[in-house]
């Protein structure tokens, strides 16, 4: 049996209300709010958060990591390798980026399932994540949201087996970005929805139901992508599903359209509530369509569902539209008049990749003191080269002291920086993200998260920061 063995979503904590956007522009508000990745997040960091959550919830590792996104930080360079290094996957893990199509997540899931079926892999994590942008004043700026979800595809302890699938491609330029475009373009809405989205989705869903002789009422849950709320309900009505009882909330009001992550995020929300024996219809759209039939197994009972998606959605920090503009570099700003630090050396990053990306330190075998970064001579007992590797990324800590740096070159001032004392020993001074300056306190509980440091020296650098334990 091949299917989903673990799942987790990651929704950034920040929310931009659509009324706030309409306040800025004097345009009509769609209502509700959209999730916004902080300026130190991108598709890759959100996918890492979802991947680590997926591994933790499923108490598993993976021998493959597929990244699905239309907003990979690199145009030439795989993102999945950075993610695999951050998630500390074994070196033999297969990595791939599935990019450019809004349907990339289900394409990746099918490829993962094929690999597992063929026996070349045991458990592959598919992490989908997107940070698409719509131009100012436009409807996409309100509609789009940012988020990620990770689904592990394997054959041991399957929670939801993949019972069948069907795919079609369709060549229709409905939405696109060319090289260098920051904002998504779209062709005339009525044409792309009626001729593109609705027809293609109806076709693939009817086909998969016919193939497996299923009727609408056979499904406990129907989870499918839609560009927006209206086309989402049109499709449900067209196919004869009960909108209230069967259809998974597409989360437009609370998160927005998260692109490649939209369907996987919805699926995580559906699985959070699923019972053994549930039959779930999953359909995705983008350059064609894909339908999957999932059957929930008894294993769902033992699966950790302590922190559900819905609780994630409860942790939110409202932001102003101006703050969003700043985070996305949408307005030219006054240059910062303080001395610049040097760009990173790629050689140094390579040499220290295990400590930088997977956040490994060392633990002294002589005196037992954990320390970060890795040392040759112990900070406590001065033993030389008596160390074992010691990972800090998953450890919780507490703020021993802190500082608010108003002279920071960070996007937002003051920078919130804390001295984190880890449970079990070791300390690190690092940025505290997702923490407003007034919130930090001595003794505050924090955990570590993988974040973007910004572009310097023509590369995208990543590192770990602390954040308050939600």
């Amino acid at each position, binding site marked *: 049996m091949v299917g989903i063995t673990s799942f987790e979503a990651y929704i950034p904590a920040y929310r931009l209300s659509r009324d706030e956007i309409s306040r800025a522009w004097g345009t009509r508000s769609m209502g509700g709010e959209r999730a916004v990745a902080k300026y130190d997040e991108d598709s890759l960091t959100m996918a890492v958060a979802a991947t680590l959550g997926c591994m933790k919830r499923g108490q598993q590792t993976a021998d493959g990591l597929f990244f699905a996104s239309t907003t990979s930080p690199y145009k030439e360079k795989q993102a999945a390798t950075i993610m695999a290094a951050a998630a500390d996957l074994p070196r033999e893990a297969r990595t791939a980026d599935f990019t450019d199509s809004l349907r990339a997540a289900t394409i990746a899931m099918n490829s993962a399932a094929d690999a597992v079926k063929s026996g070349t892999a045991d458990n592959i994590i598919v992490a989908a994540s997107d940070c698409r942008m719509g131009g100012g004043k436009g409807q996409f700026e309100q509609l789009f949201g940012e988020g990620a979800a990770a689904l592990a595809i394997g054959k041991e302890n399957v929670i939801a087996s993949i019972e069948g699938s069907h795919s079609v491609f369709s060549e229709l330029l409905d939405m696109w970005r060319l090289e260098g475009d920051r904002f998504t373009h779209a062709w005339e809405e009525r044409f792309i929805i009626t001729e593109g989205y609705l027809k293609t989705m109806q076709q693939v869903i009817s086909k998969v139901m016919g193939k497996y002789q299923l009727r609408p009422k056979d499904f406990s849950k129907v989870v499918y992508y839609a560009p927006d709320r209206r086309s989402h309900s049109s499709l449900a009505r067209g196919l004869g599903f009960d909108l209230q009882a069967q259809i998974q909330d597409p989360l437009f009001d609370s998160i927005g359209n998260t692109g490649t992550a939209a369907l996987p995020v919805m699926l995580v929300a559906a699985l959070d509530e699923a019972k053994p024996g549930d039959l779930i219809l999953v359909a995705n759209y983008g350059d064609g369509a894909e339908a999957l039939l999932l059957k929930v197994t008894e294993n769902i009972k033992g699966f950790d569902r302590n922190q559900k998606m819905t609780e994630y959605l409860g942790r939110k920090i409202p932001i102003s539209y101006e703050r969003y503009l700043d985070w996305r570099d949408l307005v030219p700003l006054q240059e910062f008049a303080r001395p610049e630090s040097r760009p990173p050396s790629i050689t140094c990053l390579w040499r220290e990749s295990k400590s930088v990306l997977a956040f490994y330190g060392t633990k002294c075998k002589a005196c037992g003191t954990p320390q970060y970064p890795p040392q040759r001579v112990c900070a406590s007992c001065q033993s030389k080269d008596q160390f074992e590797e010691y990972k800090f990324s998953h450890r919780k800590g507490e703020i021993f002291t802190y500082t608010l740096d*108003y*002279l920071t*070159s960070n996007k937002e001032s003051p920078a919130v*920086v804390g001295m984190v*004392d880890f449970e079990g*020993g070791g300390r*690190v001074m690092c940025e505290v993200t997702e923490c407003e300056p007034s919130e930090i306190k001595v003794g505050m509980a924090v955990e570590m998260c993988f974040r973007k440091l910004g572009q310097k020296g023509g590369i995208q650098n990543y590192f770990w920061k602390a954040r308050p334990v939600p």
Partner: protein
Amino acid sequence: MGTIRDKVAIIGMGCTKFGELWEKSVDDLITDATYEACEDAGIELKDIQAAWLGTVFSGHTALSLSSPLKLNYIPVTRVENMCATGTEALRGAAYAVASGACDIALAVGVEKLKDTGGAGVPPANVLGRSTMGTTGTELELSPPAMFANLAVRYFHRYELAPDVGKMLLAEIAVKNHHHGSLNPKAHYQNELTVEQVLKAPIVAPPLGVLDCCGISDGAAAAIVTRASLARNFRNDPIYIKSLAVSVGPSRDPISQGFDFTHIEENVRAAEMAYAEAGIKDPRKALSVAEVHDCFTIHEMLVYEDLGWSKRGRAAEDIEAGTFTLRGELPVNTDGGLKCFGHPLGASGLRMQYEVYLQLQEKAGPRQVKDPRLGLTHNLGGAVWGGISCISITGNELSKR
């Protein structure tokens, strides 16, 4: 272990005015300070047999000293120990004459920070690391933000309400500005009120702009010789009693031992310095002290680290006026870094210059009574991995 006590004398010193010296180059500052020191010692530049230059950002190699002064093929060394650089240059020159390798040596400290077009010094993230390549993941923290960590923890540990703690820090700034107002060589010669300090824009809570020292240009120089030769040059030479430097292992930011309410390097340097100088009760023995008031919180910690105030109780001495000009132990009588600004390489020697004047009773309106021994103190590097430098000098040879 040997000692440098009473082996070396300072026979001449020079110090430029500190400030935004737009019209002066690094070479001008070196030249002005050195010639003033030579004139004070009654020697000529050609009498100097070896020289040390201390600078962090304003020069590279000993050529930065030999070229402007046209030193003729003598041994010259450039030293760098961040904020403790000036004292480090003096240490080099003093040890050279103490060893007998030469009779007269020069120490110059210089820094010109106002030509960069930006405020402040480069971020402290690369301290102690190669500047030729880093991962770019090092934390960038401005100097005031680094020191604010100490204030946050100190206030927490000793249960000082934020407004009470901030008031104590303000008193230190007000004191140093009062001293600076009496000093024509200071960058800032204005008096401050507590209210001004409290209302100044915040740069790293609880530190506001007026809790921070300025950034300025300046240079200072000292001529040293063996103590036995000193009286050939002048009647009032100043004798070096100790030169201590303690460099931390930087274990504080990685292991949980460091309490962030003191600087261990300061404590260790003070222990070394007092032992070398034969001082048992520093608060009584010292007539004057110039300490590293880069940020007011550090001066407050120094009172405790150097053994003048009891742990956690510097507040009592601040309130009692212990460290004011007419107090029990006047601290930063020239205005300190607060009024001079902090041209990194120059500061240690600028502090020495004030102690030198005080011990010779030439400090004018800032003169302390009955001076015997004076101390200078610098902290370089980070608060959790520092370089603490202390000098103690006196105006008499010890009776043995």
